[in-house]
């Protein structure tokens, strides 16, 4: 048996290859974690991270008791739950359907077009929403008016914010998200289908009793894993969609951190970092809990 030192030396070249990536991780991931201590301090640029004065949980206390706290947490969670629930069935249905299509050109065309919006950038996506939903010139309102309805200021009404966010997201990514289900479907043993056909099962029965049970475990695992990132919303998209009229329903933790820390003139670095850290810690606990859950579900579905 080798001693650790010898075993390290034996593969020193592998460590040499790893040096740059590890340096990157330390500098750009772990140093900011060290820097997160400013959440417990009153950070001033002059004193720096280390020498700023400790203030304990002052900033956390201020956040939790702030007027905005309840609203921000509710918005973050609601937006996520809405997104998960509404977004869940579409990729699944799309994959089940595509799996039965035998006409190649039809299948290829549907896949090509439904995957395409995935590559539209967030900025362009939101820009498209603004144009299409514009109260004066947008096509949606033009159509509404043509049918005798009143024009609606979609982006200016806080009631619509979450729905616009969620459904535009489904439009953009349902196609691409179905790829993983198609992969799961292609790994279903074809002899199951052959046996079912011989037994006289209809297509509908085969879909419900062979395909669906085949991909539900994948879907459940994905859903559970997504629950782990419950506090992460598509922050970049929310930020772009925000305007003074809809912040009541659109302010989420990440946009708040950004505004308090980097936009506001007051330079509340410590307060903002505290909110960020609050989110990171809760998010981390959620991921741990959810992984535990996924492990259990995984075993249950295996045996």
């Amino acid at each position: 048996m080798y001693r650790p030192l010898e075993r390290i030396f034996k593969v020193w070249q592998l460590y040499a290859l790893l040096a740059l990536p590890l340096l990157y991780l330390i500098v750009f991931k772990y140093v900011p974690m060290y820097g997160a201590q400013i959440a417990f301090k009153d950070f001033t640029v002059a004193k720096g991270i280390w020498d700023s004065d400790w203030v304990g949980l002052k900033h956390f206390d201020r956040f939790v008791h702030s007027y905005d706290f309840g609203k921000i947490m509710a918005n973050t969670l609601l937006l996520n739950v809405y997104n998960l629930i509404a977004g869940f069935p579409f990729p699944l249905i799309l994959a089940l359907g595509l799996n039965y299509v035998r006409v190649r050109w039809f299948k290829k065309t549907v896949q090509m077009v439904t995957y395409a919006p995935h590559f539209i950038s967030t900025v362009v996506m939101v820009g498209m929403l603004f144009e299409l939903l514009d109260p004066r010139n947008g096509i949606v309102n033009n159509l509404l008016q043509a049918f005798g309805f009143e024009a609606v200021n979609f982006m200016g009404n806080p009631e619509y914010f979450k729905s616009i966010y969620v459904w535009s997201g489904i439009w953009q990514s349902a196609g691409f998200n179905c790829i993983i289900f198609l992969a799961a479907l292609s790994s279903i043993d074809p002899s199951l289908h052959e046996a079912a056909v011989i037994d006289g099962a209809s297509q509908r029965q085969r879909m419900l009793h062979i395909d669906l049970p085949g991909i539900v475990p994948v879907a459940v695992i994905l859903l559970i894993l997504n629950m782990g990132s419950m506090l992460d919303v598509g922050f970049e998209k929310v930020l772009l969609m925000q305007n003074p009229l809809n912040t009541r329903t659109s302010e989420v933790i990440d946009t708040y951190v950004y505004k308090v820390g980097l936009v506001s003139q007051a330079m509340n670095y410590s307060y903002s970092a505290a909110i960020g850290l609050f989110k990171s810690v809760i998010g981390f606990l959620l991921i741990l809990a959810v992984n535990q859950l996924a492990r259990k579900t995984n075993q249950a579905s295996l045996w």
Partner: protein
Amino acid sequence: MEHTRIKSSVGDRLFTSMIYALLSVFFLMVLYPLIFILSASISDPSAVVSGKVWLWPVQPTLMGYEAVFKHKLIGSGFANSVYYTVFGTLINIVMTVLAAYPLSRSDLYGKNVIMLLFVFTTMFSGGLIPGYLLVKDLGMLNTVWAMVLPGALSVWNVIITRTYFQTALPAELLEAAQIDGCNDFKFVGKIVIPLSGPIIAVMTLYYAVGHWNQYFNAMIFLNKQNLYPLQIVLRNILIQNDVNALMLSDIANVAQREALRVLLKYSLIVVSTLPLMLVYPFVQKHFVKGVMIGSLKG
């Protein structure tokens, strides 16, 4: 042909047509906004704002595109985006291979600890402000480094690449090379990289699309116009409605100017999205492959 087809029951045929109908509806719902934007971008501005365009172009004109190409910042933004994307992706690929290969080796001592060091960063982060302060303290604000270094490596992509190495490079290959006196550096350079074309293609696409579409880092790290990538220029025009008045000043009529402003936005959406949309059908299978490899050990 005819005799090989299994005759299906009425129920099955009905079910099949329902599937086709459902998929067609979804297909049209995704396609319609894309067609509309393309049509609007080449229509007469006043027809666009008055709602006469709803599917096909009306009185086709290229005025919108002319306005886009006259805009100074769009050209420089395009060039900057290409620069950040190419340079950033190059760094990404080198870093990802450097990290993934050693982690794919079973004889790497302390592999679990190193892996934990990687994976932990996906579950916990210092947050926006400490990250911003770091980039600021390193003096990278308003430099290209702020665009390419903070995201030099994605741990998810390292894991996908590692899985690929583990499955695509048989252990015998390494043994044979080692017997012939090949060291690890040479093995990576002469055997691993030449054999990993597919995964490098997938990673290049993932990273490149990420760089091309990224705006947030540019927004917080850059504040000089000549450094702005395309997405920031797009944000200013599409989201903040900041269309340089001088650019449209040769049009006296306020209503016409407003209409041209709308047309310019549609054209801009097309110009900025078309490059990806044209390349994407050819690389689609690589993206799909990436999802498949990722799902092996997701």
